[in-house]
């Protein structure tokens, strides 16, 4: 069964890129959110195997969404996407319990590498 992934990024272009990379590898993108609030809602509805969250999103940012998702399901696998220069935010996210992070702009191997390692983590 294909791994079910939820994408969250306010830029639809970004989501498209991620979607293509993931589908190529055989992952199933089960949902897309354009803000943190939607991401949390979709997470609760769809319960994907993995969530990829952008850090800067309107309505609720990736950090807040991480908190909410982890409070719903402490074992949720979350990968944070961020731009350079957001060290503090990523560190905070790591403290919250994300599995991994990728830095934009990223190469496809980075995204896939992060996902495969993140899914292997207990």
């Amino acid at each position, binding site marked *: 069964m294909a791994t079910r992934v939820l994408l969250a990024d306010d830029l639809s272009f970004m989501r498209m890129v991620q979607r293509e990379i993931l589908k190529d590898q055989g992952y199933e993108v089960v949902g897309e959110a354009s803000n943190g609030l939607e991401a949390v809602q979709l997470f609760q509805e769809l319960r994907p195997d993995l969530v990829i969250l952008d850090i800067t999103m309107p309505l609720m940012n990736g950090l807040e969404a991480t908190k909410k998702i982890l409070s719903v399901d402490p074992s949720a696998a979350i990968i944070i996407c961020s731009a*350079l*220069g957001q*060290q*503090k935010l*990523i*560190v905070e996210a*790591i*403290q919250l319990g994300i599995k*991994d*992070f*990728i*830095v934009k702009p990223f190469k496809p191997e*980075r995204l896939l*590498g*992060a996902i495969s*390692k*993140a899914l*292997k*983590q*207990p």
Partner: protein
Amino acid sequence: MTGGGRPDAVTPMDEARLRRAFLEEAEEMVEDLNRRLVELEQDGANAELRNEVFRLFHSLKSESALMGFTKLSEVAHRTEDVFDLVKRGTLALGRTVMDTVFAATDLINEMIARIAAGGGDAEFSVDAVIEQLERASGKTVALRVEAERVPQERREEVRAERLSVISRADRLQLEESRQRRERLYRLTCDIDDGCAMKFVRAYLITTNLEEVASVLKSIPPLDLPADGSEVSDEGYGRIVVYLSTAEDAEVIRRAADVDEVRKLELLELDYEELLGEPEAAERADRPPDAAPAPASRPARAAPERTSIRVETRKLDEIWSLVGQLVITKGRLERLLARSPAEPRGAQVGEELDSVRDTIGVVAEGLQRAMMETRMVPISVLFDKLPRLVRDLSKQIGKEADLRLRGETTEIDRSLVEALSDPLTHLIRNCLDHGLEPPEARVRAGKAERGTISVAAFQEGGKVVVEVSDDGRGLDLARIRAKAVEKGLIPVDAERPDAEIVEFIFRPGFSTADAVTDISGRGVGMDVVATRVREIMKGEVLVRSEGGAGTRFSIVLPLTLTILNTLVVRLGHRHYAIPVRNVDETAKLADPAITGSPQGRQAPHRGEQVDVYFLADLLGSAAERKDVYDTVIVTHRGKRAYLVVDELVEELDVVIKPIDDVLNPRRLFSGVSVLGDGAILLILSTTFIGD
């Protein structure tokens, strides 16, 4: 920084934290020691107690040595040696030995106190005590010299690291891990050169590791700067992590195997390589029958309780926030009560009410929960008492048994410090004045040794601490005579015994021939009363049971800072009266008031009580009405009417102390700032008079 040289690798922040941790443990251990030693004095053959004491001195020795407090360590060491002989059965636990051990414990306590105050143990002279210990043990014990093991050559890198980077702080942690029988690993992670955020990558790795291991150290360090600045990636291409764990190597490898990690190397180490201490010698120390006791965590007989250590500063912050929440809740309630329901609409109105109720429930729940975090078992005070009674009875020359009850009763943390002196004084008073000398006791048909009982229990929102003795009780005649002498009561006055005994809480009422004081500080029963009443906002009562003894009761409120009050209005201003001083509210008809303006009275439940107009007290004109709204206030058992303009509401407030400058006639006991910024003065009911 006093207390032995330390390598520069320990940052000032680590240093302070380390010191605090050491002090916490050391203080606990000394308290434990005092308790056990007193028990051991009564029960010298108890092998379990002997082992316990031995372990405690042993732990104190190790920990203070690690911290660099050599003198402290030496005293602990010598005392440990004495107990080693006692354990083996080659030294009897006689009076001299015990006294010497107590003296050593006191010295250790003093040194720890000095360290806690920021100093060290260097200026203490320990030779006298050590000589005493040697004499007590009957021979000179040679100082053990720790052997320096030559580290193995094949771990050249490890050795270099150990000498330059593994600091005292790390050694402490390594010791702990070793005691827990965990495996020690050195993990090297090489991060991809192309990784854009190497520091964060390294941080992720150690965060993962921390779920399955204790990360002892990482090189370079992965601490976040306190000022929130970013850490440069330079130097983070490779990190070396020392960790200890009970898990397998595979688990560690998996935790560290994150994306953008090029290479992992995991080496298992022996503790000696980092600590350089012979493990074999340590093993020989431990008594063969006992389970290995972690050097820094002595086994406690206390009930199993999972707990964590939290800085009180953090709790105080939360407590202050809870206080503000309570105030804001009150403000919300007032707002809702004031705003008309109509414009809101029925549905919004209902929701608002529901929100208000929820906030009320949550605020109250938080308040209660926070109160509980502030509560500590009174055993923290009780634990010191056996030693105190022992020392006092030697000083005073009367033997007494101490009976403690209710050690698990919880009291507010802030009261513990304040309660210590009054408690000590009451016990001293019982020993000194309450208990008769042995011959008198025997003649009176009592047991030769007196009994002092200290009991604590919760009752109706209060905590009661009772100190009683089975001695001769209070000399009422003498107290009465003194009261007459001081002009407090007329010579022929008929006063009930209950009132007479209250006089002992007045200044100058020591009826003993010699004034006794606590450690020369001149504290009398009146200071106890002031402490309890003014500072702790509690009450102290005494009951003399004739020749059967005396009983003192200290009654304390369960929490200090949030006060339940009744708010009243006078003119445009509101004032608050603590609910504990409010008996009830009543309407009072004007014709019922009799007497002159200086001494008005009115009937209340069959007796005449004083009537006070709040306006009079505050210096404004009292309005005459046909019927008055009043609050029946109480103070020390005396009741009085307090006439106000209107009763407003019940309100929880956070009290703040009021400056004396603003309070010349001591009419107020505090002030509260309401959520909307208004100031609410809290009335003190002492005006009712004694």
